[in-house]
């Protein structure tokens, strides 16, 4: 099962419609389950829900074989955590899909690092979907401890926060 998710923000009908059309045209053969938010477009070729509670969301990610999503860090971080191949399509300001174009930069960066595939418009989706099955996302080793130590030492310097 491929999981399509557009995140908790405003609608992203452009992506939902594109995936729905790829299913009806036969370009996507696998079953797709979608989380579509509050968009007006209602898919005809796939099962969908508006939103998922955080733990259910994580459960679906674990069960799916691959992901298609907006270029939000919620989806990208989950794909990295569970080593699922992911195609992102960034939300763009010009279509009113986000307040700025930072998702474009997120997509470019994480694509360059080999963690995800990216489609920069609906037309690029078809090609990327062909790659999805064989794509092995590069694993990531974050220096989380550096962040934890810096913030903890700042809190300790304030005293009395314990």
């Amino acid at each position: 099962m491929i999981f399509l998710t557009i995140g908790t923000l405003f609608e992203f009908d452009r992506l939902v419609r594109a995936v729905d059309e790829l299913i009806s045209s036969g370009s996507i053969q696998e079953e797709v389950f979608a989380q579509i938010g509050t968009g007006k477009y209602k898919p005809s070729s796939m099962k969908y829900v508006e939103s998922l509670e955080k733990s259910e969301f994580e459960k679906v990610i674990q069960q799916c074989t691959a992901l298609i999503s907006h270029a939000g860090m919620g989806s990208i971080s989950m794909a990295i955590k569970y080593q699922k191949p992911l195609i992102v399509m960034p939300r763009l300001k010009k279509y009113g899909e986000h307040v700025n174009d930072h998702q474009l930069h997120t997509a470019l960066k994480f694509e360059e690092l080999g963690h995800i595939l990216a489609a920069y418009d609906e037309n690029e989706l078809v090609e990327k979907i062909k790659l999805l099955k064989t794509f092995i996302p590069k694993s990531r080793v974050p220096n989380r401890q550096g962040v934890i130590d810096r913030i903890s030492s700042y809190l300790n310097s304030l005293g009395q926060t314990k």
Partner: protein
Amino acid sequence: MKNNSVCLVASAGGHLNQLLSVSEIWKDREYFFVTSLEVSAQNLKKQAKTYIVGECNREHPIQTLGVLFRCLAIIIKERPRVVLSTGAAPGFLMCFWGKLFGAKVIWLDSIANTRKLSMSGRMIRPFADLILSQWPEVAAKYPNVEYVGEVI
């Protein structure tokens, strides 16, 4: 009397994932959560007091006004010692009110911002007590922004 608590603020989705991935920071401290949506609050409520303030951004001024006042009410009620946020707009509002009421402000800019600080991060920067970017090249652009690692 000011409390000793740490106020943890993150919008639903990636912001919250990033905040929770450093939960070691507050395990021995007094804390409460502020998030944007009910869907992300269920697990938080099991751990600590959790406020839901709604989602907002600069394109929705009326909604933002509602969040602004809800954030103010929380700050007045809780008087946290520290506000720690990964964004987005509600995180900025909590930091803003927190600072006015004497809290220290810690901002961990989302890893989504690969080229410059987020809008909220840029607005917080002048009065943040500690501000971190998760990209060295972003941190290098601002005098008081540090890079010490990344959480994803």
